[in-house]
């Protein structure tokens, strides 16, 4: 296997379960380049994945600590992990179903909070692991296993959703933009906040077969290439074009979510310590005047005052 795979991946999981010609492995190769060029070691980075092709074919390939959450919930698990292990880099590699369908709520709230993780949403425009049903990113009118008369549901771009929710880095590339993807992932990793990189890639077995009419790997990657350029090989326009590039870069302009919680904790504990010091000084003064006071000694673990303000007492 190539040098970066030997450096970072888990040998027992290579070759991966991905089909031949699947874009997941390509993108993972670019992620490894970005990680390597940023100087990260295996123990610095935690991979989180979900369910579906992107989840299953990525899960356990990373040689370091990694998790595969339940469907759509990788970001919810990552939120808890980031609380406990804030100084690691998190690469949350999920598909369009995991991120933009079942997991969209967590995507929105992680972006809103500016949780310090990098989400790589690898989009094959359908639920390919279950055979090729449509997803919220399937192009309009395309035939899939569950849209045999053509996709009539309007779709959306998850980039728009996370940008509106407050993500501080949003970008889009495709499976024929290797250099751009490596550069963009490096910038995403450099943002101490919520980064979202949306990468469209080909599926030959299902999307290729049912929506594009072929399992030919070359034709399906050409299709991706054409829709990235906006032009086919014969010069004619494609039915739609993906807008690629960095869509929003407010890197490091907002505090990372868990740093806000840590700052709050420091403030709360400093105030409690000051209050305790004041009480101790007052107690010492009172004792000096030989007045016995029944004072409630502050218990360990912080102030136990009960005024939670909900009006019960």
């Amino acid at each position: 296997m190539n040098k970066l795979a030997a450096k970072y991946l888990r040998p027992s999981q290579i070759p991966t379960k991905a089909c031949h010609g699947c874009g997941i492995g390509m993108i993972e190769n670019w992620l490894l380049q970005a990680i390597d060029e940023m100087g990260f070691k295996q123990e610095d980075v935690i991979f989180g994945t979900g369910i579906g092709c992107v989840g299953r074919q990525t899960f356990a390939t990373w040689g370091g600590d990694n998790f595969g959450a339940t469907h759509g919930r990788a970001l919810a698990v990552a939120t808890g992990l980031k609380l406990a292990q804030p100084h690691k880099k998190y690469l949350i590699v999920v598909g369009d179903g995991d991120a933009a369908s079942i997991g969209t709520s967590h995507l929105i709230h992680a972006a809103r909070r500016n949780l310090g993780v990098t989400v790589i949403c690898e989009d094959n425009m359908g639920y390919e692991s279950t055979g090729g049903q449509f997803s919220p990113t399937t192009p309009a009118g395309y035939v899939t296993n569950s849209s045999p008369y053509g996709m009539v549901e309007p779709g959306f771009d998850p980039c728009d959703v996370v940008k509106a929710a407050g993500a501080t880095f949003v970008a889009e590339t495709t499976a024929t933009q290797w250099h751009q993807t490596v550069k963009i992932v490096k910038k995403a990793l450099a943002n101490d906040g919520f980064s979202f990189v949306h990468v469209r890639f080909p599926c030959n077995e299902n999307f290729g077969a049912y929506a594009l009419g072929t399992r030919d790997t070359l034709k399906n990657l050409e299709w991706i290439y054409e829709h990235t350029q906006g032009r086919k090989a014969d010069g004619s326009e494609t039915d739609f074009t993906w807008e690629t590039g960095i869509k929003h870069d407010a890197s490091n302009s907002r505090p990372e979510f868990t740093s806000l919680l840590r700052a709050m904790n420091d403030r709360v504990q400093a105030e409690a310590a000051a209050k305790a010091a004041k009480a101790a000084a007052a107690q010492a003064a009172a004792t000096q005047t030989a007045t016995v006071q029944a004072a409630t000694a502050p218990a360990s673990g912080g102030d136990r005052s009960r005024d939670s303000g909900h009006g019960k007492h």
Partner: protein
Amino acid sequence: MALFKADKKAPKGPAGKWDVVIGEDMCKACGFCLNVCPTDVFAYRTAANRIGWFPMYVAHEENCVGCNLCYQICPDFCIDVALKPGVALKPSVTPKTDVVASAHARNN
């Protein structure tokens, strides 16, 4: 312009200075490397590997110009392209793409 080019160019420039290694037991024969290569380096084996595919192999390493497109496009971590040991690119050769520059950087 298409991504995959049927016509292969004659090798020029820094051809012959590159080691190309392909992990044949991991190859799933997608055909990307063979078809994206501008100068005809790869070919298919006629015997299957242990995972059931007829893998690529490096048929004409001397044709490699170090563009690294095969390295970038392989979905299965099979390919490594590096300058042959002890070989340096001529200083007057300006790397035409970022790919070559990063390959150069990786080897130094």
